């Protein structure tokens, strides 16, 4: 193994010796797959017959006239099978797993979207499947847990550490270290050791490729700005990748949580709270203390509640190619509500971060400008979180009644 997978100073593969050969195999298979035109064809076939690629590009007419600035377009990754861009990644990795002849997949999940996507892929490909999920995330994304189990996956609650996404990743690595002979770890975002950042971005690049073609077909020109939320960075890299060589501003939106000065957020590159470190197998900016211990993070969106960030994004940020911003939980909920009421679209709370930032900037652009927001997923999964945020009395009554029906 050579030192590979660096983006500027970020990336690498900081992995235990026992996994080295597994990674070598994976890198190898991925390189072969990339070089094989039939592989991408197979990928496109499955994405267009099992999920609904190309996903549409929606003109948000009402939001556009509300803000009176840029023309707002929305890339509809929420319409993917399982409801988020995560499908792009898992189906691609599934095809690799088949090539490698492995029979079991494991994954971490935060929002649960990646878990559902992986469980779905496993059902479809006939793999056994185990999903690691932090206990805190299980509580806020229970419907997704329910569906993973119905899809035949085993969901293992992670009770260590902060009991969120990063701990689920650690736990998945622990499983992998034991079972790599028949198991592939389907990492859910463009983080982790090489080749994951590259591989996940590769499969997600379909978003940007489509979006660029669609916007040019519809408007005859490029957007001025592209917005995406950033948890690990996969949906952002997916959509940005279509515009990297274009004169287009790329805006990555992180979870500002309760505010950047409260410490209760997950803003790595848009706050001063993060520093370069090595954890979970790669080098990037982490929200860590001066000793290098990871901090607790917070976001209303489980999928953004993560300490690290894709090394590819860290590098693009350092180069000045991608601008990082953050929005607070409360702004996210406002953007969420507005989008439902004005356009009939239900973004995932993760995606709503991108909407919130775009709404701040749209009024200051001219009607000649186009902006593109990546709606990475749908918000159905967030029903409990949203109901709680709005203190929905009827919902609470309903839950109380259900609880009574279930008995003590």
């Amino acid at each position, binding site marked *: 193994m050579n030192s590979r997978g660096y983006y500027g100073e970020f990336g690498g593969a*900081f*992995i235990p*010796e026992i996994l*080295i050969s597994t990674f070598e195999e994976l890198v190898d298979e991925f390189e072969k797959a990339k070089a094989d035109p039939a592989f991408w064809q197979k990928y496109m076939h499955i994405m267009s017959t099992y999920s609904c690629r190309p996903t549409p590009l929606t003109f948000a007419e009402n939001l556009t006239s509300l803000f009176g600035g840029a023309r707002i377009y929305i890339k509809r990754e929420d319409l993917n099978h399982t409801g988020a861009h995560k499908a792009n990644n898992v189906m691609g990795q599934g095809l690799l797993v088949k090539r490698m002849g492995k029979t079991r997949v494991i994954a971490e999940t935060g929002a649960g979207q990646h878990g559902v996507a992986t469980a779905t892929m496993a059902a479809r490909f006939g793999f056994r499947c185990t999903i690691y999920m932090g206990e805190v995330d299980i509580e806020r994304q229970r419907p997704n847990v329910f569906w993973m189990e119905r899809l035949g996956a085993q969901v293992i609650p992670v009770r260590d550490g902060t009991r969120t996404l990063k701990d689920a990743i650690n736990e998945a690595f*622990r499983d992998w270290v034991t079972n790599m002979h028949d198991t592939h770890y389907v990492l859910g975002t463009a983080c982790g050791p090489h080749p994951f950042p590259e591989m996940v971005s590769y499969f997600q690049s379909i978003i940007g490729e489509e979006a660029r073609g669609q916007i040019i077909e519809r408007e005859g020109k490029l957007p001025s700005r592209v917005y995406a939320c950033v948890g690990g960075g996969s949906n952002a890299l997916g959509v940005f990748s279509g515009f990297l060589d274009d004169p287009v501003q790329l805006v990555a939106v992180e979870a500002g949580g309760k505010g950047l000065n409260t410490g209760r957020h997950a803003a790595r590159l848009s706050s001063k709270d993060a520093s370069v*470190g090595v954890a*979970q197998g790669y080098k990037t900016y982490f929200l860590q203390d001066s*000793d290098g211990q990871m901090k607790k993070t917070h976001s209303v969106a489980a999928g953004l509640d993560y300490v690290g960030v894709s090394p590819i994004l860290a590098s693009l940020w350092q180069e000045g190619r991608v601008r990082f911003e953050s929005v607070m939980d409360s702004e996210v909920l406002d953007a969420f509500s507005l989008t439902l009421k004005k356009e009939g679209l239900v973004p995932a709370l993760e995606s709503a971060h991108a909407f919130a930032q775009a709404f701040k900037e749209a009024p200051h652009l001219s009607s000649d400008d186009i902006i593109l927001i990546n709606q990475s997923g749908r918000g159905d999964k967030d029903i409990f979180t949203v109901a709680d945020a709005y203190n929905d009395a009827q919902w609470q009554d309903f839950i109380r009644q259900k609880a009574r029906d279930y008995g003590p």
Partner: protein
Amino acid sequence: MMHNGKISSDKRHEIMALESYIRAVLKEKDILLMTHLIIGYPSFEECFRLIDVMVGAGVDLMELQIPFSEPIADGPVILRANHMALENGVTVQGCLDFARSVIRAFDIPFLLMTYYNIPFTYNTSAFVSAMAKTGLKGAIIPDLPPEEGHDYLEAMQKEGLDPIVIFSPTTSYERMKYLDSFARGFIYCVARRGVTGGDTILSEKLIFYLGLCRKASNLPLALGFGLKEKADMVFLKGKADIAVMGTQTIRTMEKEGIAAVGEFIRRLR
């Protein structure tokens, strides 16, 4: 007996390189015993007492682990110990200070074990210098393959510390040779797939694996595995040079107290 008290005047290892120390001990014993603890778990005081008991019981080498919030290669017992130590407020500087006082107090070689983010955040070469000043003999960093460890290896070389290299059952013979080229002190051979704390089956396969390791390196071999009883030690004699006991000491301490750890170790010999 080489070490028979807390404060020995015969600090032979201090002037001896780790490998030489191991080879010297091997002349007197069939196999060395290396144990492990997480600094600050359950507390600095208890750690100190635990070391006292272990050294008294005949342990030849020890790994002191600086806790990290993401101990990716560790199993549930050590994982939790890491988190508890951090919750107790343990800092990296506190760990180095503790290591220094332990090294002063006990007459066996001590190694550091931690994850790469700890030296990296401290500043790798400064950290290695601090290790050297503390009197540590070397370090084990399970998430730092040599490909990623240039700065670290250079600093270790400069300070005369031993970077302990890890072999695993999935490591090819070729790679073992490659890894060996960076190794000093001894080779840490992982007994099986999985994280720390699982059961290892003493098998023909294990013998074959150790044979391969022996062929790939001239350094002494440590075998990290779920050491449980004397029979395990007997099995290993002649096949490995150091038996590593990690999780089991912590389990014994948690269940039966520190004194029981001494008895447990004595029974292994």
